[in-house]
């Protein structure tokens, strides 16, 4: 018997495979595919949109390219201010951002945190997920930092957060930072003492992995 990679399966992976086979079947039984498809109207709208896009290949794509170049220029330094964006494509870009980097942070206490970063006109949209960050008392909170080596080590805060009562964390933060100059990402535990400087109590850290 082999595992998904084609390697011989040991007892643990065989047990995992069996667990996946059984529970996977239970899940599909519990959540059956409704089989509902789109309405004829929805299909027609999609086909029209696809056909229209096919007929105008250059204009929209050039606008996105121009927007992307402008974004790179705007994001070349830290703390770049707002940029004027107009037009439908630009509004889309503003709304969603463009996937740009990921980071997997780990800590000595077993904390594991996943970050996803997207470039947007207002900076970087950072989605942070973890189910292993310890719940903190009201007097404390966590803060996400991007460290850069420009002008010496600089800590750029991306915002504060805390897990819910069950220890789950899913937050979306915004950071005025260029990930290409980031040397490390860290999460610190902070006291509610009004001091904006990092406490130094690092609970998780890791490097940025730029996409593409």
């Amino acid at each position, binding site marked *: 018997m082999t595992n998904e990679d084609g390697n011989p399966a040991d007892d643990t992976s065989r047990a995992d495979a069996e667990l996946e086979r059984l529970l996977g079947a239970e899940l599909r039984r519990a959540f059956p595919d409704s089989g509902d498809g789109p309405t004829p109207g929805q*299909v027609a709208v999609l086909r029209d949109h696809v056909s229209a896009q096919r007929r105008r290949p250059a204009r929209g794509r050039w606008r996105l390219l121009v927007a992307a170049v402008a974004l790179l220029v705007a994001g070349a330094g830290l703390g770049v201010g707002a940029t004027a964006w107009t037009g439908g494509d630009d509004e889309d870009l503003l709304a969603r951002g463009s996937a740009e980097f990921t980071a997997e942070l780990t800590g000595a206490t077993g904390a594991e945190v996943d970050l996803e970063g997207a470039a947007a006109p207002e900076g970087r949209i950072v989605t942070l997920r973890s189910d292993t960050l310890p719940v903190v008392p009201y007097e404390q909170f966590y803060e996400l930092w991007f460290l850069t080596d420009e002008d010496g080590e600089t800590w750029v805060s991306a915002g504060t957060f805390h897990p819910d009562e069950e220890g789950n964390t899913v937050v979306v933060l915004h950071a005025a930072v260029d990930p290409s100059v980031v040397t490390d990402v860290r999460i610190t535990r902070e006291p509610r003492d009004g001091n904006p400087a990092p406490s130094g109590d690092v609970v998780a850290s890791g490097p940025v992995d730029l996409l593409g």
Partner: protein
Amino acid sequence: MRIIGSVDSGTSERDLLVRFRELDPDAWETVYRRSYSRLVEYARRRLPSTYDPHDAVSECLTRAVDRIGDLADQGVRVEAWLYGILRLVVLEQIRRSGRQERERPVADSPLGLVEATNDRGPLEHVLRDEQVSSVRVAFERLSIDDQEVLWLRQVAELSVAEVAEVLRKGHGAVRQANFRALARLRTLIEEVDA
């Protein structure tokens, strides 16, 4: 999966991907029809209740058309790319609504009753319904992350590589997350049944 229109049932996923990238309306319709219900359910499970999951899927497809130049051939089905876009649409709505998580009571589940097959007796129907209910209750108790990886891997039946594409994680990380979530689900099912 259902294949429709002028796309032959023997059409390979690679051919479909090529035609999809070339904005062939038939290829888009094929993917749209075969993935629609699962995409809607994925969005429904994660979106704030004020947002229509059908609208989210429409938004996803609209963005996909506009961003077709971003679709690369990475050896995974087109659906993985669509789930990735839909995931961003959902996250944006969650962010806009100011809600980080959504809790949906099991009784409010949009999935409807599970129809038992006709080859079972009344007692087996009851037992099967109880088991299905236990799995649903246990699933709802999982974290959002566990639910997401299990939904994509087990319910939507994406491959490890495809889930990795959606979640933008490594294959190993997806495998670990999948098995950890399965183990937690098993524990929760046992608690629910106890």
